[in-house]
C-alpha cells in the first residue's frame, strides 16, 4: 500500500486571517491539524536595539508601534520604567489621565479584536459596528495628541499636555451636507471630557448590540465553545496573562494585583471565564469593555473637578514652562539640553509592567548612567500566547485555527517587535 503523507499547508504570511504577518506551517490530516508551527519575525524592526541608541524620550514613539492597536498602554509601561529608574513622582492629575487613556485604549483594542475575530469567523457586520465606536475613541486620541494612532502622548513624569477643550469636528463636504455634519458634531461641541462622558453613556448599549449579534448566536457558539481549551494550570504554566488567563478562570489582573497609578481608587470588576475556551475569552473581553467604560466614567468625573499639573514641576525630565524660558537662563539651558541630549538616569535596572489589553506588557530597562538605556527588554504578551498556538489548535480543524488566532488577539507589531 502506498504511504500516505500528511498535507503541509503554508498558512500566511499573506492570508486574510493571519492578522498581519503570521506564517503558520500546518501539518494536516485532511482538515484536522496535527501540528502548527508558527514562524515569526516578518515584522521585526529591532525596537529593543533602536531604543539603546536614542535618548529616553525619543523611544516613546517606538512603543506606539509595537502593539499598534493599543498604543498608549505600550507607552505607559515604557514611561513607568523610566520613572522608576529616575524616581520621578507623577502628578495625580496625570495619573488619572493615564488611567483614563489606558482604558480608552483597552476599549479600542477590544473593539478591533471583536471586529477582526468575528470577521475571521465569518460575521462581517461586527467589524463595521465595532469601527463605528472605535472612530469616536480615535478622535479622543486625535484631540489629545494630534495623532489618531501613534499618539506619543505619555512622558516620563506625566503626559505631554493637559486635556484639550475642543474636539476635532466633521466638516461639510460634497458627500455630507451641513445638516448631517451638525448632527454628527452634536456631542463634539464641548471639551474632550464632555465627549467622553457622552461616549460612556452610550457605549454600554453598543456592547449590548454586539452581544445580540453574537452571544446567543448558535453558529457563533458552535464555532467558539470548546475550541482552544486551556485549563487553568496549563495557562499558568504557559505564562498566559490578560484575557487569555482570565478566560481560563484565574482572576489575574495587574490592575488589582499590583495596582499602579490610581487603579486602587477605581471601582471595577475582573471578569473570569470557566471553561477556558474561545467563547469564554470572548465573554471576558466583552465584559472588560463594560468595566473599562466604568473606569473611564470615574476618571472623567474626577478630572472634571480636579485641576492641577500634568508634569512634575521643576523636574529634570519635564520641560520648563514657556514663560520661565523667556526670562530665566537656567530654564532655557534646561530646555535645550532636554530636547537635544535628553537626561541621564542613575545606574540601575527597573521592570515596569502594565495590564495591557492583551496581557502583561512589561519593560525591563537597564541604565548605565548614560542618557540612553543600556538595554531594553520588552515583554510582549502576544509572543507568549502565540507560543501556545500549537497546543491550542492540535486536533482541531482548519477553521478553528482561525478562531484560535482570533481569540489570542495577536498583533505582530508586538510579537515580532
Amino acid at each position, binding site marked *: 500500500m502506498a504511504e500516505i503523507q500528511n*498535507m503541509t*499547508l*503554508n498558512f500566511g504570511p499573506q*492570508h*486574510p*486571517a493571519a492578522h498581519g504577518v503570521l506564517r503558520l506551517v500546518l501539518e494536516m490530516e485532511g*482538515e484536522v491539524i496535527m501540528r502548527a508551527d508558527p514562524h515569526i519575525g516578518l515584522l521585526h524592526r529591532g525596537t529593543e536595539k533602536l531604543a539603546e541608541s536614542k535618548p529616553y524620550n525619543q523611544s516613546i514613539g517606538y512603543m506606539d508601534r509595537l502593539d499598534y492597536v493599543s498604543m498608549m498602554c505600550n507607552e505607559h509601561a515604557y514611561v513607568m520604567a523610566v520613572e522608576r529608574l529616575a524616581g520621578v513622582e507623577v502628578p495625580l492629575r496625570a495619573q488619572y489621565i493615564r488611567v483614563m487613556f489606558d482604558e480608552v485604549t483597552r476599549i479600542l483594542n477590544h473593539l478591533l479584536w471583536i471586529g477582526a475575530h*468575528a*470577521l*475571521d*469567523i*465569518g*460575521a*462581517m*457586520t461586527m467589524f*463595521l*459596528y465595532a469601527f*463605528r465606536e472605535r472612530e469616536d475613541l480615535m478622535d479622543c486620541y486625535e484631540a489629545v495628541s494630534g495623532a489618531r494612532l501613534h499618539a506619543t502622548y505619555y512622558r516620563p513624569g506625566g503626559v505631554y499636555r493637559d486635556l484639550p477643550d475642543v474636539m476635532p469636528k466633521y466638516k461639510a463636504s460634497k*458627500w455630507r451636507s451641513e445638516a448631517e455634519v451638525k448632527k454628527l458634531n452634536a456631542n463634539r461641541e464641548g471639551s474632550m471630557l464632555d465627549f467622553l462622558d457622552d461616549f460612556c453613556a452610550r457605549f454600554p448599549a453598543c456592547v449590548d448590540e454586539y452581544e445580540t*449579534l*453574537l452571544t446567543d*448566536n448558535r*453558529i*457563533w457558539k*458552535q*464555532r467558539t465553545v470548546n475550541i482552544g481549551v486551556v485549563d487553568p494550570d496549563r495557562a499558568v504554566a504557559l505564562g498566559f496573562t490578560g484575557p487569555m488567563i482570565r478566560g481560563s478562570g484565574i482572576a489575574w489582573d495587574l490592575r488589582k494585583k499590583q495596582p499602579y497609578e490610581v487603579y486602587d481608587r477605581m471601582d471595577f470588576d475582573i471578569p473570569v471565564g470557566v471553561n477556558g475556551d474561545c467563547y469564554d475569552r470572548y465573554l471576558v473581553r466583552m465584559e472588560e469593555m463594560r468595566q473599562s467604560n466604568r473606569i473611564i466614567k470615574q476618571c472623567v468625573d474626577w478630572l472634571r473637578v480636579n485641576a492641577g499639573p500634568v508634569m512634575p514641576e521643576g523636574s529634570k525630565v519635564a520641560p520648563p514652562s514657556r514663560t520661565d524660558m523667556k526670562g530665566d537662563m537656567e530654564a532655557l539651558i534646561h530646555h535645550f539640553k532636554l530636547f537635544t541630549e535628553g537626561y541621564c538616569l542613575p545606574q540601575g535596572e527597573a521592570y515596569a509592567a502594565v495590564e495591557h489589553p492583551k496581557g502583561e506588557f512589561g519593560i525591563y530597562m537597564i541604565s548605565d548612567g548614560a542618557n540612553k538605556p543600556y538595554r531594553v527588554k520588552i515583554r510582549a504578551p502576544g509572543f507568549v500566547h502565540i507560543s501556545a498556538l500549537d497546543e491550542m489548535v492540535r486536533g482541531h*480543524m*482548519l*477553521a*478553528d*485555527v*482561525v478562531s484560535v488566532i482570533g481569540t489570542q488577539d495577536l498583533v505582530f507589531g508586538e510579537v515580532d517587535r
Partner: protein
Amino acid sequence: MFDPVMAFYADLPLVVQILTKIMIIVMPLMLGVAYLTFAERKIIGYMQVRIGPNRVGPRGWLQPIADAVKLMFKEIILPSSANRFLFVVAPVLSIMPALAAWAVIPFGDGMILSNLDAGLLYVLALTSVGVYGVIIAGWASNSKYAFLGALRSAAQIVAYEIAMGFALVGVLMAAGSLNLEKIVQAQEGGFLHWYWLPLFPLFLIYFISGVAETNRAPFDVAEGESEIVAGFHVEYSGMTFAVFFLAEYANMILIAALTSIMFMGGWYSPFPGIPVIGEPSVFWLLAKISFFLLLFLWFRATFPRYRYDQIMRLGWKVFIPLTIVWLVVEGVFVYVKLGPWFA
C-alpha cells in the same frame, strides 16, 4: 400595435424563435446578476451602517458595469502547474447549468421556454451538476487552498442534495406533477393556498439547502474567505473569475425563483379577488424572487460561517431525517385530503 411584430415573429424559423426566447430570458438574467451584486453591496452596506458604492455614475448605479468592464480587461492568469484545459473549462461548467436551468422556469401562465413534464427532475439534475465546476476548478488549480475548497464543496453538495431532493419529493406529492407550471397552478389561490404552509419544514429546508448549494454565507465553506482564502477560485482572475461570480449569482436567483415557484405560489398574487394587485402576474413572481434574494443578503450580513464538519452534521443529522419524517406526515395529509392544498 404588437400584431405586426407577432406576425413577423411567427414567420421566423423555429430555431430563431427559440433563440429569441433564450435571449429574452438570459439578457435580463445577466442584468439581474449585475444589479444583484450592486444590491448586495448597497443593502449589506446599509445593514452595516455604511453607504456602499456611490462613486460610479449617479449614486453608484454604474458600479456593476464598471466592475464587468474591469474584469473583462484583466489578464487571465494560468498558473504554471495547473491543468490548463480543465482550468478554463471549470468556469464554463459552473455557469452552464446555472443558465440552462432557467429553461423550465415558468414566469407566468404559459410564459415558459420549455414546458417539460419532468421539469422538477431537470432542475434537480442541473443544480447538482453545477458543483462539478467547483470540484474541477479546485483540482485543476493545483493549489492546496483550492483543493480544500473543492473537497469541502463536494462533501457538502452530497449532503444537501439529498435533503433538497426530499424536499422536492414533498412538492411532487402535493402537486402530483413534476411539471413546474402544473406545480404553480396547483397552488392557485391566496397566500394560505400555497405550499409553504403544509410543507413548512420542507420549505425551510429547501431554502436553507439552496443557500448551502449556492455556497453562500453562512455555508460558504468552499470559499471560506478567512480560512482557505478564496477556496476553489483562489487562482482565478479576470473573466474566468467573473464567470464563477456570474454563476454564483445566477444560481442564487435560480434558487430564489424555484423557492417562489414551488412553495410561494409562483406568479399568483397573495391577495386574489382584489382588482389590479389581485391579478396573477409575472411581477408577483419577481417580487417573491426579490424577497428571497434579500434573505440571501440578510443572512450574509448576520451570520458567522459554519465550520465544515458542522455543515455536514446539519445536513445529515438534522435536515435529512426531518424531511423524511415530514414526507410521512405529508402522506397522511394527502390521504385525508387536508384543507385546500390536497383536496
